[in-house]
């Protein structure tokens, strides 16, 4: 899994490619790190092939961490979209 970080003032975008599962989820958590001063967090999942509950957990943690800020997941493929729908994550996370 590769992570590309794009900083734009108080907006932080992470392009995540590959598989987000138990082994790689800690990498993402560490890459996001401290969200001090960040009001907008975006995960670009265009090249994400698979996401497991460990990956969802990281997203949930970041949703809680950003507090009043916004968290958006964009460019989900069909499989990932389905996971988000089933688990109800599409109800609490902005999905584009």
């Amino acid at each position, binding site marked *: 899994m590769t992570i590309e970080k794009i900083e734009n003032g108080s907006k932080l975008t992470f392009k995540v490619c590959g598989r987000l599962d*138990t082994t790689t989820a800690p990498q993402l958590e560490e890459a996001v790190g401290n969200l001090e001063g960040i009001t907008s967090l975006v995960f670009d999942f265009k090249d994400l092939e698979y996401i*497991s*509950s*460990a990956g*969802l*957990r990281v997203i*949930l*943690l970041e949703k*809680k961490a950003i507090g009043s800020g916004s968290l958006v997941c964009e460019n989900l493929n069909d499989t990932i979209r389905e996971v988000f*729908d*089933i*688990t*109800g*994550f599409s*109800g*609490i996370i902005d999905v584009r």
Partner: protein
Amino acid sequence: MLVIKLVGMTLLPVILSFFLHLLKKKTSFGNFAHSDIVAGVVFGAAAVICTEFGVDTGLAIYNTRDASVICAGLFFGWRASALAAVIGSVERFLAPLWGVGVYTRWACSIATACAGIFTSLIVKYLFNEENQPSPTQGFSMGAFIEVFHMLMVFVTHANDIHKAFEVVRQCSLLMILMNATAVALAILCIDFSNGKKQIYGDTEKLSFKFGYGLAIAMCIGFAMSISFISILQKRISDTDARTLLASNIEDVKQEILATNKTSLFDMRNSATYRHIGTSGYLVITDVSGNLITGSKEYIGRNASDFGISISSATRSEMQRASIGGVDSYYIHDVLNGFNIVAVLPVDEAKFSNRISVYVSIFMELLVFAILFIMLNALERTLILKNVDKVNKGLKSITSGDLSVKLDVNGNKEFKSISESINSTVDKLEQLIDEANARMDEELLLAKRIQQDSLPCVFPPFPNRQDVDVYATMQTAKQVGGDFYDFFFASKNKLYIVIADVSGKGIPAALFMMKSKTIIRNLAETEADLSEVVSKANNELCENNEMGMFVTSWVGCLDTDTGILTYCNAGHNPPAYVSKNRVDMLRRVSGLVLAGLPGVKYKSQTLKLEKGDKIFLYTDGVTEAVNSRVEMYTEDRLLDLLSDKECHDLSAKELCIRVKESVEKFSENQEQFDDITMLCMEYK
């Protein structure tokens, strides 16, 4: 003019080295297999140029032939220096045939040949890719060869040592400087063109510190022995001079007394033809100091005109003065009113001293240099190589390979180090294995506890004919995060639960136990299913810093009416298997449990007919992968469940059928996720 020629001579090998080096780096010349032969020829030609156009001083030719040979070797390999040396030395040897100086023919040829041997050996065995010569080392090499060269002049002219001494005295310093500087400059230029800062001499390394200490010790030894030799030699030559002068005076005195010569003529004869050493002589004066011996122009003149001072205070003492323009020692004595003066030029008196010191210095330089190289080589073989071996082995071990065994046995100490390290690693391995074994044991117990905590008695309701349940949970690791549950909350309310905690292993297992307990407790007290789930969610959100969550599907079947009420909190949709169709129940009631507090879950209902089955599963089933990394998928599950054969299977048989299908599909790939399933049949 002379200076320009000398500088030009010095720079010749430098420019040549630089130019050829660039050629090698930037053009295809570098790929040419025999570029070292070509370099050898080019530097050989340079050596010839040095010989033919060197700065001829009549005695010797100033040149940088040896430096050319060294540069050839340092930058282009041992073959280059060998070839350059052959060309240079043979040409030098033959050169007198067409007019080049013959005096140093042997010395120069031998020195150039040896320069080739020396450089080739050093380049082949001492230097390599990582260990390149530094300018200091290059300088030393050039100096070393030139010192040897000078010694060769002495050796090849042992019979006319005086002239040899003159040659060496005049040109040794400059020759050494020119050649040494040429090599050092060449190295600097090439390193500069490579952009290197410093890959020679990492000052922290053992070899550097050792070499540094050794060099200092050798310098001290050299200084001490040369000082000692110088002082001793000076004493000896002084004593010898005095003895020589005094004995000559005695001889003259004896001769005069023995033959009773008293006439001027006789005195004169005794002295005039007497030689002291090679260039010394006797002079006899009358009582007032006027010469009575010597050639016509000297007779009658006073000795003091020539610098000789005669007084009774200095009788029989050795003095030093410039006599007739020549720095000389002299002693004077008196006999029968005549003064006898024995004179010996200082140069001759000190000659053997000087030669001794020169030869000693050169010899010691060579010997110490050779010793230095040998000791370094010894240190490298005995110590450094072994240290590197140990370090390499340790590196492998620390990067995870505990099976690496060290085998450094050059000497006792290293053997002992090897063995100690090996046994330490063995012990570590053993401790790790023991720790793992303990861990495994505990995990096994934990697995038992987990398994036992799930209802595992089948058939579960032997006394009831209206419903049957079968379920299995197979963990990926020893303990897992999936669970199922089923229980009668009241006489006719059967709860079936399936859940999947985020993650795997111990953390998931702990949260799994918590979730299962909370859901069951709430189900047994709360009448409304959606309340059960909503409250369970809130309770699970409490004290959940780690952000765990659990997908769940909770259903409640009223066995009297056949109405199934259910809530899906982010879990995989169960399969509804009825006589005519198989569907997925896709309605989602809300977010996964323990995600966010305060979520309200809406329940759905479904009327079951007799014979209908509900099949619950976790994503370990649908996401099982085969060797081509394809997933089992819901579609495959649906296909299987739709198969006419599955119609009449019991709950247990259905689960087994699915399990077999998944196992067959995954072709013995390692189980990646917990696989859990539950099948309920409404009869």
